């Protein structure tokens, strides 16, 4: 479904992604783990077209999207929940969700998806008239994921959904991620520092170090891999 082939991305003079290859198949949950500054978020921003690659290709549903605008990529069904949640602080919860469906015109289906996210996160339904900025961190993360669901993605990119959240909320968020994958057959590409949790929900994983993919394997193998255990699982 998504394929990155020898992608190189630069921030000015900084060579952030050094020829990375990633492949994600339909229906999978794939995770990308690595330390701070390894280039995980840059990978997602490159896929979404916000920071286009300098060389290499990004292919989505068989189409080369490396030079497409971010809005065209969203239109194709590739949606990202960025790190730090990026809730629109002065829009209400309801308006934030409406914005998620910005490119959609199928009103009845939008309404159904709205009911679906309120079912996933009843808390949001209670707070639909509150502005986004007044929500707690956990609620904002729920809203960010819900907003992405409203775009009806075929491939959902999640950047550090567990960042700064209480363990119980993290558990809940990961449960929802599995649920979305199972119920809607949404493919998920999950970037995480919480490698332990990420590898437990993902089918496969990539390990990233300073702009390069160093290991790529099934999750259970990565969980058993000595160097991964030492570097990312704290064991």
């Amino acid at each position, binding site marked *: 479904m998504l394929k990155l082939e020898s992608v190189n991305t630069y921030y000015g003079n900084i060579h952030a992604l050094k020829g990375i290859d990633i492949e994600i198949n339909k229906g999978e949950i794939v995770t990308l783990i690595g330390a701070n500054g390894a280039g995980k978020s840059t990978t997602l921003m490159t896929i979404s077209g916000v920071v286009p690659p300098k060389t290499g290709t990004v292919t989505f549903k068989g189409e080369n999207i490396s030079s497409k605008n971010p809005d065209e990529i969203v239109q194709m069904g590739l949606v990202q929940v960025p790190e730090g949640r990026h809730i629109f602080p002065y829009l209400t919860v309801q308006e934030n969700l409406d914005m998620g469906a*910005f490119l959609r015109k199928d009103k009845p289906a939008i309404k159904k998806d709205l009911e679906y996210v309120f079912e996933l996160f009843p808390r949001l339904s209670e707070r639909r008239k509150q502005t986004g900025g007044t929500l707690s961190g956990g609620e904002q993360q729920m809203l960010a994921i819900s907003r992405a669901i409203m775009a009806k993605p075929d491939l959902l990119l999640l950047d550090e959904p567990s960042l700064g959240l209480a363990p119980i909320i993290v558990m809940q968020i990961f449960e929802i991620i599995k649920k979305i994958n199972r119920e809607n057959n949404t493919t998920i590409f999950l970037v995480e520092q919480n490698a332990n949790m990420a590898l437990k929900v993902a089918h496969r994983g990539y390990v990233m170090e300073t702009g390069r993919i160093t290991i790529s394997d099934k999750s259970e193998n990565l969980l058993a891999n000595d160097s991964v255990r030492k570097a990312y699982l704290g064991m």
Partner: protein
Amino acid sequence: MQLEYFISLLLGGLAKGSIYALIALGYTMVYGIIQLINFAHGEIYMIGAFTALIFSTVITYTMPDTAFLINVGISFTGAIIFAAAYGFTMERIAYRPLRNAPRLSALISAIGMSILLQNYVLLAQTPDFLPFPSLVPNFSFLEPIEYIVSSNQIVIIVTTIIVMILLTLLIKFTRVGKAMRATAQDKTMAQLIGINVDKIIAITFVIGSSTAALGGVLISSNIGQINYYIGFIAGIKAFVAAVLGGIGSIPGAVLGSLILGLTESFGSGYISSDYEDAFAFIFLVIILIFKPEGILGRKDNQKV
């Protein structure tokens, strides 16, 4: 007599404030969306006035029997379309290439654009003042109270109210309006939900330029003369109004403009008209000492 004098100052101030508001909208909307003080915005207002003058003169001389209202309609529409086109082009060539550059670069580009447009009109037209025809009909029902309020002032105030209502509806309820608000609040996220940010920024420039042109034509028709330099002082005043109200806030810009218009009107009416321009800036200094973010500004504008 005292009361009539007061009312005439009040209405004069409101009319003045309305014009500032029409210009200040462009400053505040552009700032809200790309954090740029578009110093060339006053020039757009001036170009709007010149376009209307050209249209109306051409119509008057080539087709003298054109009905007055048709002439007015074409002049206003022409001014708005031309100014919008200038605003759009300006964003394309002077600001879009600098979208990811430091903010200072874009600011310098704006100042350059302002000087360029002023001198372009100076060369293409004339350095002298040109007479500007009255493009507002004289309402006969106002004749008995003409010494209190003129037809021009009424038209200015009513037009501004209509523009404000339309703009509020646009921003609150339409798709474009929602996209504008989202883009102003978080540009990266706006892209990630599928908003074409470049397009929204262009639309913002077009709307701001249109209202500035409208203000330019209305006030020129009231004053009766224009030259290439009128955009500078009007632009600075409207900028002051936008800062006063809280730059980035649309209701703030309107409020700031009305306060500024009224201060100038009452100040020059009751104290001395020599200091008319000074009142605006004294007021700005006082407000900024006590409320640096402006009257309706947000304190937390700085995003991490």
